[in-house]
């Protein structure tokens, strides 16, 4: 099943984002971003299910947590999503 990856500018931001999402009832997993998703090198992201992207972005925006690019990941492939 595809997942969305919400890029975060640091591990701490990713953790904060995940806590916000969990409080909103959205399962979120902090993980290292796949290579190629960041031009700056190592980065972290929050992984959520395909169905919860809109809810997730709303929850994060409502508490002013900055987010980066969003990718859809299926298997080993990922592709940037325009929001």
């Amino acid at each position, binding site marked *: 099943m595809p997942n969305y990856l919400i890029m975060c500018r*640091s591990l*701490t931001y990713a953790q*904060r984002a995940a806590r916000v999402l969990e409080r909103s009832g959205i399962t979120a997993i902090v993980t*290292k971003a796949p290579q190629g998703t960041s031009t*700056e090198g*190592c*980065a972290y992201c929050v992984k959520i299910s395909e169905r919860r992207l809109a809810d997730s972005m709303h929850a994060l925006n409502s508490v002013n947590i900055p987010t980066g690019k969003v990718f859809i990941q299926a298997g080993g492939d990922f592709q940037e999503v325009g929001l």
Partner: protein
Amino acid sequence: MIYLDSAATTLLKPPEVKAAVISALDNMSTPGRGSHSAAMRAADAAFDCRQALSDFFNVSDPERVVFTFNATHALNIAMRSLIGPGDKVVVSGYEHNAVTRQLFEIGADIWVAQSRLFDDYDAVDAFKKAIPGAKACVCTHVSNVFGYILPIEQISDICHEYRVPLVIDASQSAGTLLIDFKRLDAEFIGMPGHKGLMGPQGTGVLLCASPGVPLLIGGTGSDSAKLSMPAYLPDRHEAGTHNIPGIAGLRAGVKFITSYGVENIHGYERSLLSSLARQLSEDERIELFYSPDDEIQSAVMSLRIKGANCESVAAALGDQGLAVRAGLHCAPFAHRTAKTFDTGTVRVSLSPFNTAEEMDTAARIIRDVANIM
């Protein structure tokens, strides 16, 4: 042993701190590197501690809580971020060498807002005169020698009025007095984790209103393709491997402090110190540097035994099972202020784990030692 040297390090910790350290050693690697379970457990421990500290000190975001190795490290980052050679910097007359040596190394123009011990009016007046035109103000919250609680909110207000960034050394107040980062409007607050916050040695914290300039440069596990340090907090100041066992222990310490409440801890410690001071004040050979006012005296107190060398007194007390510290306490400015520079003092400093019975015993031992010196 009766341990009355908590201003150096709280030896007596809640048992949860030790358990957290051991658990971290057994189960956690390091955050910001891998994404395997041991790394993520470490990341969770660090974030939990950051969040707890952020809540405890009323910091807007956990990202503004930076882990350091001690208070000196934190204060070095703060001062190096704000101050350059020749800059006018205002300090209190009670600063520790963690502040004054760094300012000397930078080549700052150090202005001392000199004020009498336990005299808030004098302190505020001195800062009002000194702060205009300063590049920064660096001020201890509580004197590590005398336990004098400086009027930090009023000093903050003066800094705010003149738009002078304030750095606070909270080494003796974090975990024992209320500290509201937003209210104090400080640019940085530096503190140890291993004193009032009950964490292990090797832990410190810097609360940041601005990103500052990194002191330690290296890998952060983020933005790895770039040669420069990340621009964002906390990564900007956290190069290299974290002290995760220490941070896990610090988290347990903060949880303990939060559950008891700093006001309760301060009240309890002050009642103990009050008892000790009352018993010692009956002996005319003992000179106390003490204020009965809870608003300006923390649970740190200096004393001298007339005619006796303070190091000899501390050694004799140690032989009797009383752990104290003597000398200048790395704070020559404070001793010059109180006119104790030539003799130094013997310092007693309490923790929530001390008891009333210990105060009675300590008073007896100090009086006995005064008899034989």
